[in-house]
């Protein structure tokens, strides 16, 4: 039976906090083949930290998101798409606050007859001065196991 996800639309998630440590920023840059920070921006983290915040800043784990979406054994979680807006700097060695809400859900039948459900989560990232530094809208896809 296909889960009914409409109940999730508009649900606020706990959000949370995130600290970007300088050493973590450096390690992540290396893992992602990012170029060195441009001159004068050595104190700034890469915008990929908005993506990091979109996952860690929901205030629930990916496993808990899967539970909300009634993911079952044999279902596969996929990352469908993302909309990122950067509106401010992301200095390292600084603390950030995030808010999160499920803005939409959906379901469609694929050509092979399987069901692909979607859960859309908006995470907003606020800087140390509480000004918005960016937002990320992520679409999580749940490919349901076929019988």
């Amino acid at each position, binding site marked *: 039976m296909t889960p009914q996800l409409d109940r999730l639309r508009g649900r606020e998630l706990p959000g949370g906090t995130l600290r970007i440590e300088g050493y*973590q920023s450096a*390690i*992540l840059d290396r*893992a*992602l*083949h*990012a*170029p060195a*920070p*441009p001159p004068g*921006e050595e104190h*700034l*983290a*890469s*915008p*990929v930290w908005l*993506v*990091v915040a*979109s*996952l*860690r800043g929901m205030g629930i*784990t*990916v*496993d808990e998101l899967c539970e909300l979406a009634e993911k079952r054994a*044999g279902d*596969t*979680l*996929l*990352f*469908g*798409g*993302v*909309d*990122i*807006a*950067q*509106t*401010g*700097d*992301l200095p390292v060695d600084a603390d950030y606050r995030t808010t999160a809400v499920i803005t939409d859900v959906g379901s469609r039948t694929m050509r092979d007859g399987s069901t692909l459900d979607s859960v859309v989560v908006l995470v907003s990232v606020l800087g140390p001065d509480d000004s918005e530094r960016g937002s990320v809208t992520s679409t999580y896809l749940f490919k349901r196991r076929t019988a």
Partner: protein
Amino acid sequence: MSRASTGDVAVGTELPGRTVHGVSVDHIAVMALVLQDSNPIHWDLDAVRSARLGDREVNQGGSTLAYVQAALVDWAGSRTAVRSLTARFSANVFAGDDVLVGGTVTAVTSVDGGLLASCDVWADRTDGVRAISGTAEVFLRG
């Protein structure tokens, strides 16, 4: 990668290409830790096979997207230049894959202090499969 000069940017300008050679299993694991992403398709080959995704670890979509972000940041010369980025994930990138990132300027708008370049962007596996397609708005300081 060469930095953009606002005088040289116009509709049709190709962004400098960027290639990530051999996506590393260890880097996928690092990203799983940073993202606190427990999805086993990134580190458990049994889970990868069970999901019918092949026999190599799956790179995080966010990591492949980061290759695009890095190319745009490098082109613009600033970590705050990518004002927006919209991306759709159409195929997986796996451990060991090479990934080619590129883009094209589709519109240029004069704004205070420089230009806002609208771009089509993409990330392809070097076997020709498109992993990411999207659009970006990038501020280029004048």
